[in-house]
């Protein structure tokens, strides 16, 4: 196969991987800070995706413009969800959390099915079918925009957690729950904030995803699983890890699809997951548990 095919596929894989990474970043915040196994992660993303579709089809608002508002809506959703429903489950065993979020996922998916119907929706912006050509390299325009946005949002998030006092407080909660209580931090509020931020991430990722894929109510579960694979591979508690994990998985799947049977390419992502779980459980960029 000629070299430019590999190049194009690899670049596409990296760009898509960046968006996956942003989605996983949301889970890293939720799982890393609040310690909740969010099995409704992909479903939350699908809410954002449908919002983007509705905004575009009804109000003709480009998803990239709606990025911030929709992320804000998801933030509110996540905040309310955490403080009202999920908070008591933080200390409960994983299977209880799992059931709670599975129930939520079922509700979300089927409400979306009732409201929007089963047909696939897409956002056909003017630039939806554009591509840039640089010699042998053909880059999908929407993927490029989505990838750049993912980096920007991740950078903003990183700055938030590093430099703002709230961000530092949230990290303190995550690192040392008791210590945070002792110091007098309002842990419940910080947990709700963290969940909200995680949801906002997933919302932003979802808006960008609508540029790349079509939305159906059932799109959630695939991405939930993918988010977990990426977070574990990249390393829990590391934001850069989530992005790196996303790129790694995106790239691996793309090249695997090219070199082997495309319908089996997910096996490689799971293979990487198993290897990471066994040999480097803290993930590629995660810190070893103290």
């Amino acid at each position, binding site marked *: 196969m000629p070299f430019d095919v590999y190049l194009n596929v690899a670049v596409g894989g990296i760009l898509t991987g960046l968006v996956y990474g942003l989605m996983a970043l949301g889970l890293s915040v939720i799982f890393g800070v609040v310690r909740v196994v969010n099995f409704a992660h992909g479903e939350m993303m699908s809410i954002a995706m449908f919002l983007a579709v509705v905004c575009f089809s009804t109000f003709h608002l480009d998803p990239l413009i709606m990025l911030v508002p929709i992320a804000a809506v998801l933030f509110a959703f996540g905040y309310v969800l955490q403080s009202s429903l999920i908070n008591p489950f933080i200390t409960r065993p994983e299977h209880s959390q799992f059931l709670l979020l599975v*129930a939520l996922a079922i509700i979300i998916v089927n409400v979306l099915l009732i409201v929007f119907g089963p047909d696939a929706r897409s956002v056909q912006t003017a630039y939806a079918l554009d591509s840039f050509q640089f010699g042998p390299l053909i880059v999908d325009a929407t993927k490029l925009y989505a990838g750049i946005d993912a980096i920007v949002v991740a950078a903003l998030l990183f700055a938030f957690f590093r430099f703002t006092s709230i961000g530092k407080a949230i990290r303190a909660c995550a690192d040392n729950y008791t210590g945070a209580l002792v110091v007098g931090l309002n842990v419940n509020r910080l947990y709700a904030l963290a969940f909200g931020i995680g949801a906002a991430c997933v919302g932003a990722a979802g808006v960008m995803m609508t540029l790349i894929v079509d939305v159906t109510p059932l799109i959630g579960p695939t991405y939930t699983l993918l988010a977990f694979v990426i977070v574990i591979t990249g390393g829990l508690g590391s934001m850069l890890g989530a992005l790196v994990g996303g790129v790694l998985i995106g790239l691996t799947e793309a090249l695997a699809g090219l070199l082997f049977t495309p319908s089996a390419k997910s096996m490689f992502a799971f293979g990487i997951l198993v290897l990471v779980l066994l040999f480097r459980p803290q993930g590629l960029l995660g810190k070893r548990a103290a």
Partner: protein
Amino acid sequence: MMAAGTMGIVAHLTDGVSARTLAWLAALLALLLAAPWIVNDYLVTVLILILYLAYTGQAWNIMMGFAGQLSLGHAIYVGLAGYIAASLFIRFGIDPWLGFLAALPVAAACGAIIGFLAFRFGVTGVYFAILTIAFAEFARIGFGHLGIVNAAAGLFLPVAQYTHNDPWRLRGDPTMFYYVMLAATVIAFILCRLLIKSRIGYFWLAIREDEEAARAAGIDAFRYKMYAIVISAAVTSFAGVFYAFFYNNLFPEQVFGISGSIQMILGPIIGGVGTLFGPILGAFVLTGLAESLNAALAAFGFDLPGAEQVFYGVCLLIVVVALPEGIWPWLAPRLGISERSQ
């Protein structure tokens, strides 16, 4: 001699169980035995579904409830066993019970591999759960490309006859399948009871409560966790054989898929993880809920695809929020039944 031995086992089983509990159990069993004569064919089909879920729920509960290991990829044992038994039947005409004897070791070995990899490398909690998902997905995609089982096109068992019941070949009308599943569920129930009361069960309890402390006390946690996963996998494998011969077709997506794994564990979680009766109660509640919702919506002339599932999800939510331990721990004392895991 046999009688004495049986009496001994029965005494051992019922040791510490109040007469009231036994009465309830006997009544339930009698009801279930008589069911096909009382209800119509549709309800027999529903009962088969309930017992299937109760059976797989009990098998899963051995790992989760007794040994505390969350498996979210349990469908892999169902799928492996189903495909093996079905393939042997299609290709060599081997009867399902012999096929089961061949499938059980394979499922157990699969459990052993997963357990070995996980426990040796210290993969626990959520990470263990994700690991089990990874293996199940591996199997799903793998079987979806395996030519000898027809890959994604599906494996179809020939349905030779249905006019008379042939339990040996698992061919017959729903009533026959019902009794097979009922027998399996009862045997699994007894097995769980024996396990809980045994030394293994005692060590499992210790590991579940605090693995570090158990290890400090000298319990070989690795060995007992391996027992849990291997036994759980072996018991689950029968469900795969049953599934293959009841539905007569197998698709990798359906049998290995994560929705199957999730369905399997909703029952025990709702009913009560770690309890003996929880999985059975959970199966009744969930299936009963789904079918009632369906009937209720139909009766009101409400034809909105997805509505039933929304109500279902809401009910699940209410139960898990209100009764975090499950329904059985809340219900049992009110029935005068005290179920102690010891």
